């Protein structure tokens, strides 16, 4: 069995982003999806600090300190892109104007509850940023997360053990082992990596999984 690398997870998730979509990529792993949009698809990236049409990192010597993304990294604006203030940026998010939010997670539940802003560690400094707005407001929320913790414990749970970001908001989960849809009939496995069967995947997942009739092998190029 060969789990996907983090970049391969981002590649896989990027393949499902439809041409014409307005997309917000969360901090960390989801940000990498921008590197793997299939050729010929036109996607508009939204950043909650006031950008539509966010482009890649600037070339050396072309950096502009007033042009950053939500992770406070230097970015660019593509032709057709525009700037706006925070209230409009969040009106877009909260009013259902963003087609897709790709977010990272600590845990996801079988009903699509998302926990991604804080652990139960009382010493941790809390920070929520735009996570709750995106989870509650985007038309669709898809999640990228490693299937288990470093210790091998499932991160897809019957119910989340960490404080929730939003309830019942996730539609699809991309992990390093599988692509899983959250449906009204529970979690449905659409793809699994080669060498893994449903019973093995089930051992790494708390809630019950079912396998789609037309399930496929999950594979990604070396990226």
């Amino acid at each position, binding site marked *: 069995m060969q789990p996907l690398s983090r970049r391969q997870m981002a590649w896989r998730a990027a393949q499902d982003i439809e041409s014409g979509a307005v997309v917000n990529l969360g901090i960390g792993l989801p940000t990498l999806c921008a590197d793997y949009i299939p050729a010929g698809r036109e996607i508009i990236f939204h950043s909650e*600090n006031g950008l539509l049409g966010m482009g890649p990192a600037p070339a050396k010597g072309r950096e502009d300190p007033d*042009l950053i993304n939500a992770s406070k990294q230097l970015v660019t604006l593509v032709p057709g892109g525009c700037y706006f203030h925070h209230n409009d940026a969040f009106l877009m998010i909260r009013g259902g104007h963003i087609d897709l939010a790709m977010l990272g997670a600590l845990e996801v539940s079988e009903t699509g509850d998302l926990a991604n802003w804080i652990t139960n560690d009382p010493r941790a400094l*809390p920070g929520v940023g735009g996570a709750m707005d995106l989870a509650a407001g985007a038309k669709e929320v898809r999640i990228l997360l490693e299937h288990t913790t470093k210790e091998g414990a499932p991160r897809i749970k019957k119910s989340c053990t960490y404080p929730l970001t*939003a309830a019942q908001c996730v539609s699809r989960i991309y992990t390093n082992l599988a692509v899983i849809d959250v449906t009204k009939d529970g979690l449905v496995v659409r793809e699994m990596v080669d060498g893994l069967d449903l019973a093995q995947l089930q051992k790494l997942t708390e809630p019950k999984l079912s396998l789609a009739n037309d399930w496929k092998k999950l594979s990604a190029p070396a990226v």
Partner: protein
Amino acid sequence: MIDKRVKNLAAAVTGIKSGATVLVAGFGSVGEPIELTEALIPLGVRDLTIVANNAGTGETGIAALILAGLVRKVICSYPRTTNSHVFEAAYKAGKIELELVPQGTLSERLRAAAAGIGGFYTPTAAGTKLAAGKETKEIDGRMHVLEKPLKGDVALIRGLKGDRWGNLVYRKSARNFNPVMASAAALTVAQVLEVVELGDLDPETIVTPGIFVDRLVVV
């Protein structure tokens, strides 16, 4: 003649009192009115409530106020950001209070104050820890949380250019919280790189109309 220009930073912050709620614009340090914020230190004000997206970067701006012991409480969405060690140390030492607000709710609470709205219901944070103790209501089958307006005694703003009526334009993503905060305080003070003649700013591109700005200082 209407002229909102003031001579220097000291004149820009004069009259701000201890215990004030101060809106400080910016996203991290981008668009943050660092010099104006630091001008509060020689005023000798204390017990400030700072409303901002973050809780200070490095040891400048909001972080400098915290270091000087002038801040009682921070209302923000994301205190844990690049170089936020000053806030973290004060928070862990129990010297500063934190009210965590989802970023869009923070922005909308400011807008509600600006618009004279007594509150609003939003699905953001419904069913989470951040809605604890707040009124909730099911609207069209979905749970909503009642959020109250957040008004500043003072807003500190940073623009690119302004004119003597207080009209402002910004630069790229440095716009961020500046316009909404400018409209949400009893006293709004803006620092700009340059003041231009009335009529020089294209009226089609003015972002903050001068009605929201009380004082303008070139930094």
